[in-house]
């Protein structure tokens, strides 16, 4: 199996199959990030497609080819936030991403599994709340399932994510 840097180099040299493989490897993560940013399916589709269009124009000047996955999810997150700004009639990033978000590493398969396992160790309501959020339930549905006011779902989710962040950091420190 070719690594990310090899795929990027091959795509830059005109290898269509390498491009398809990049999409296969990173498309699902990009979609998940766009949706996690709060985009509708239609807008998420635009953010993902726009990110691939940007990569197409930067195939030869990604600073760290091995981190192209991080570049893609960092870019799609930026595109998502631009799309969420309804005051912008023309959505455009004037410059390509140069620094990959270090936090995007949590999207790697091993880290995702660790994250999911850690959620199951949280106390209630955090455990159920984060599992329901992961199932794409809106705040009202989450509130209804957990018997809490809809207005408190957002702040509670933020606190639960903070706890999760702390636990993950402790686990990383212990390793």
């Amino acid at each position: 199996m070719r690594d990310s840097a090899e795929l990027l180099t091959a795509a830059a040299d005109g290898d269509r199959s390498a491009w398809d493989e990049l999409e296969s490897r990173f498309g699902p993560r990009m979609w998940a990030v766009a949706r996690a940013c709060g985009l509708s399916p239609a807008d998420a589709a635009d953010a993902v497609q726009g990110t691939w269009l940007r990569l197409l124009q930067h195939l030869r000047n990604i600073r760290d080819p091995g981190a192209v996955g991080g570049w893609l999810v960092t870019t799609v997150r930026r595109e998502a936030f631009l799309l969420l700004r309804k005051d912008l009639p023309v959505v455009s990033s004037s410059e390509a991403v140069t620094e990959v978000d270090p936090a995007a590493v949590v999207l790697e398969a091993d880290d995702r599994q660790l994250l999911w396992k850690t959620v199951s160790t949280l106390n209630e309501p955090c455990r159920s709340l984060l599992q329901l959020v992961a199932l794409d339930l809106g705040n009202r549905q989450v509130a209804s399932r957990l018997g809490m006011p809809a207005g408190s779902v957002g702040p509670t989710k933020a606190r639960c994510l903070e706890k999760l962040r702390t636990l993950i950091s402790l686990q990383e420190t212990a390793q």
Partner: protein
Amino acid sequence: MINDEYFLAALRLEAGTDPIPLRVSSSSRDVWRLRLPHAVTATQEATTIRSVRADDSSHLVRFVATGLTFDLEVTEGDGLIDVAGHISPYPGEGALVDVRSPHLTLTRRITPNGHFAVTGLPPGWLSVVCHRPGHLPVQTTWVRIRP
């Protein structure tokens, strides 16, 4: 610092209830045909998006690359996009411009004073490419035009 969006995205991926739709994967792969391997890319001037009409239906965007400036006036009406463009300096006899969306490319000649126009494009991603005999093509970065 871990951004919440990445956390939530990781949880969503593990839950597996909102996979990337097949059509999104397919359209992502399909942008490959828009690749211009040797093109020079003109970047957008950061402060150049501005309204040019009182009703906010028309906007001007400027892109600059070595030697060429693209001014695009993008107008939305009835759910479609019209583009009136100007390239300076005049790229020369025989120059052509492609106005591209992911689904449609319209090719136009450039008038001797540097103008070109296309009508009826779908809203969404848009890029313009200038082809000059004897030169590498120059493409603008992609911008998304709202319906």
